[in-house]
C-alpha cells in the first residue's frame, strides 16, 4: 500500500525514512483522514476520501523542512497526475530515472519487445510522446496506451508516477493545492547548512583537547560532594581549553559575490566554534595588505608582514576564495586589479604558507569547474594542492589535514 508513492518521493530526493512511511500508514489506519474524518465545519463525514486531506497529512508526516515542500509538491503531483507531471520531470531528472522505472515495471516479455526497438530510441519516442501527451491531455483527448498502438503502452506498464490510462484529473480542485507550488521560494538545494559545517569543524576542536593535563573540577566536586551527603568526592576533568587558533583569510567582492551566502554560513559556523579566530579580507589574491572592515578597506589597511609577524605558527591558516582571476593577478607584480602591487601575489602567498605550515584553501566553486580555470591550477600549485571544495566532504578533508 502506497509503496509506489513512497518510492516516488524517494526518487524525488526527499529524505523520507521507513519510520515516517509506517507512521503515515498508521495515521491512515487510525482514520485521521478518510471517510470518517468529518467535514471541516464539524459535521459528520460524507463518506468520501478527500485527496486534499491526504496531501496535507502526508506532507505533515513525511516532510520535515519547508525547503522540501516544493519537491514534495512536484513528486506528489507526479504520482497522482501521472504522465503530465512526468513530462515535466524529464527536464529535471535524466533519462536513467525513466529507464530504471521501466526496467522495474516491465515484464520480461515486454522487455524483449522493447529491446527490438532499442532503449535509446524508445526513450526518445517516449519522451516525445510525453510532451505531446501533455498538450493533448489539456485538449482532452486520449492517453497513449489505451488505444494499443504504441509499442510501450500496449501492455500497460505502470511505474510509480507514470499512470497511463488512469482516470483523468481526479478531483480537479484538490490538484491545485500542490500545483500552486507555493513553497518554491523555500526550496534550497544547497547542501551545506551551518549545522553540518559545525559538525565538520568539531573534528578540529576534538583534536585540540588531546594531551591536556587534568585539573580539579571545582563545580563538579561541590556538586558530587553534596550529592554524597557531605562526604568529600573530588572530581578531576581533562582541561578543556579549545586551543585551536585559526587565521581566516577571505576573498571578497567580484566573482565571490555569488558564493556570499555559503561563505557567510561557513563564517558563522567558524565563529561560533573557535575562540581564537582572526580574520582578514583580501580581493582575488593576497598582496601586501589586507583589511578587516570591508567598508573601510582603503583606510584601515593591515600590512601582510604585520599579520605574519603577529600570529605565531600555531595558527592554522585557512584561505577562502574562488581563486578565479586572471593569472597576471597572481604571477605579475603590478597585476592586481585594484592598485599597483610591488610584489606578485604568488610571493605573498608563498610567504604566508611558509609562515603558517598548517594551511588549506577552501574554494566555494564546484570542484568540477576547477580544471577549466588557469588561475585555479596556479593557486593549487602554490598551496601544494591543498585546495578543497566548500562542501561537507571538502571541509572534512581540509580539517583532517589541518589537525594532523
Amino acid at each position, binding site marked *: 500500500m502506497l509503496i509506489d508513492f513512497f518510492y516516488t518521493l524517494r526518487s524525488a530526493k526527499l529524505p523520507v525514512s521507513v519510520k515516517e512511511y509506517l507512521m503515515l500508514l498508521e*495515521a491512515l489506519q487510525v482514520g*485521521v483522514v478518510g471517510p470518517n474524518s468529518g467535514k471541516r465545519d464539524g459535521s459528520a463525514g460524507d463518506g468520501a476520501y478527500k485527496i486534499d486531506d491526504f496531501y496535507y497529512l502526508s506532507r*505533515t*508526516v513525511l516532510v*520535515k523542512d519547508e525547503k522540501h515542500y516544493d519537491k514534495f509538491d512536484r513528486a506528489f503531483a507526479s504520482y497522482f497526475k501521472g504522465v503530465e507531471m512526468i513530462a515535466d520531470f524529464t527536464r529535471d531528472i535524466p533519462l536513467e530515472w525513466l529507464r530504471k522505472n521501466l526496467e522495474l515495471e516491465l515484464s520480461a516479455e515486454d522487455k524483449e519487445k522493447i529491446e527490438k526497438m532499442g532503449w535509446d530510441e524508445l526513450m526518445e519516442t517516449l519522451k516525445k510522446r510525453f510532451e505531446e501527451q501533455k498538450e493533448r491531455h489539456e485538449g482532452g483527448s486520449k492517453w497513449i496506451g489505451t488505444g494499443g498502438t504504441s509499442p510501450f503502452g500496449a501492455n500497460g506498464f505502470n511505474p510509480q508516477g507514470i499512470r497511463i490510462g488512469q482516470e483523468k484529473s481526479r478531483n480537479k480542485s484538490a490538484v491545485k493545492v500542490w500545483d500552486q507550488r507555493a513553497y518554491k521560494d523555500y526550496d534550497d538545494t544547497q547542501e551545506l547548512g551551518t*549545522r553540518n559545517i559545525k559538525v565538520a569543524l568539531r573534528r578540529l576542536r576534538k583534536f585540540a583537547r588531546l594531551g591536556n593535563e587534568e585539573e580539579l573540577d571545582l563545580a563538579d566536586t*561541590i556538586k558530587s*560532594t*553534596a550529592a554524597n551527603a557531605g562526604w568529600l568526592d573530588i572530581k578531576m576533568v581533562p582541561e578543556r581549553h579549545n586551543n585551536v587558533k585559526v587565521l581566516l583569510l577571505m576573498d571578497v567582492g567580484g566573482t565571490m559575490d555569488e558564493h556570499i551566502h555559503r561563505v557567510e554560513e561557513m563564517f558563522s559556523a567558524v565563529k561560533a566554534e573557535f575562540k581564537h579566530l582572526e580574520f582578514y579580507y583580501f580581493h582575488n589574491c593576497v598582496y601586501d595588505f589586507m583589511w578587516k572592515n570591508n567598508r573601510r578597506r582603503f583606510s584601515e589597511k593591515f600590512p601582510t608582514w604585520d599579520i605574519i609577524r603577529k600570529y605565531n605558527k600555531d595558527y592554522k591558516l585557512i584561505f577562502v576564495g574562488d581563486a578565479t582571476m586572471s593569472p597576471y593577478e597572481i604571477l605579475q607584480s603590478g597585476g592586481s586589479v585594484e592598485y599597483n602591487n610591488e610584489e606578485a601575489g604568488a610571493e605573498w602567498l608563498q610567504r604566508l604558507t611558509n609562515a603558517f605550515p598548517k594551511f588549506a584553501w577552501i574554494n566555494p566553486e564546484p570542484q568540477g569547474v576547477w580544471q577549466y580555470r588557469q588561475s585555479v591550477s596556479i593557486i593549487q600549485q602554490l598551496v601544494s594542492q591543498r585546495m578543497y571544495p566548500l562542501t561537507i566532504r571538502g571541509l572534512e578533508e581540509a580539517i583532517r589535514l589541518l589537525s594532523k
Partner: protein
Amino acid sequence: MKFQGSNTYVATPDLMLAVNAAAALKRPLLVKGEPGTGKTMLAEEVAQALRLPLLQWHIKSTTKAQQGLYEYDAVSRLRDSQLGDEKVKDIHNYIVKGVLWQAFTADQPVALLIDEIDKADIEFPNDLLREIDRMEFYVYETRELIKARHRPLVFITSNNEKELPDAFLRRCFFHYIKFPDADTMRQIVAVHFPNLKKELLAAAMKTFYEVRNLPGLKKKPSTSELLDWLKLLVAEDIPLEALQSRDDKVAVPPLVGALLKNEQDVTLFEKLVFMQRNNR
C-alpha cells in the same frame, strides 16, 4: 475530539489537519514559520479548544535537556545534612520534577509546549530523542523509570536559527505556517477586531501588503505587527483618508513604526516613498 480553530484563532485546513494528526497519533508536532505567525499561540489555542491543561517549557540558550526531565537539588541536601534534617535520608525529597516529568505523570492528558527549541545548544534535540519518541526516561538517582501515563500532545516551535538533527525530525510531525494570504488575513483581523470599518481595513491591508512586498526589508512586518498597527489606528482614531491619500501624493502611512521595527527599514521605507514622490 477535533481541533477546528477557535473564535480567537484562525487555522487553515492544513494546519488543522496537522494538529489533528499529531493528536490522533500522539506524536509531537514541530511548528515552524516566520516570527509572528502565531506558533506559540497555536499551542495555547489548541490546549484551550481541546480542554487540555497546557504546560510550557521556554527554551533559552543555556537550557539543558535534563532540566526538562528533573534536577537533583544536591545543594539543599548538603545543607539539610549539615542541619541534621530527617529529610536528608530520602533522596526523593531532592528530586525536582521538570516539565516533561509533570506532563508524563499528569492524571489527564495534557498539552506541552516546547517553545523555540532552536535557541538551545546544537545537541539539545538529540538529548530528547527517547523522551520524545517513547515518552519515558530513567531517573538514575532513584533508579525508577518515568513513563507517560497519557502521551501528552507536544508542540515544538522553532524559528530556524539552528537546523534540527534528522533523527529528531523523523520523530515529529512537521508543519510550516505559511504567511497568511490576504483572505486568511482578513479572517484573522475579523477575529481580533470584529467592529473594524470595512474601508479602513481594506486600506490598511493594502498598505500592509505593499510594505511587506518592498524589496530589501530586514524584518518584514508579520501578522502580529499588523494587529498591533490596527490596534493603534483604532485607538488613535486615524481617519480613513490618511490611509487613502495615495492617489494624488504618496505619503508615509501613519504610525508606520508599528510595522517596521528596524531603524534601517524605516529609513529605507522613507527613502522609497520619497523617490516615488519625485517620480510623479
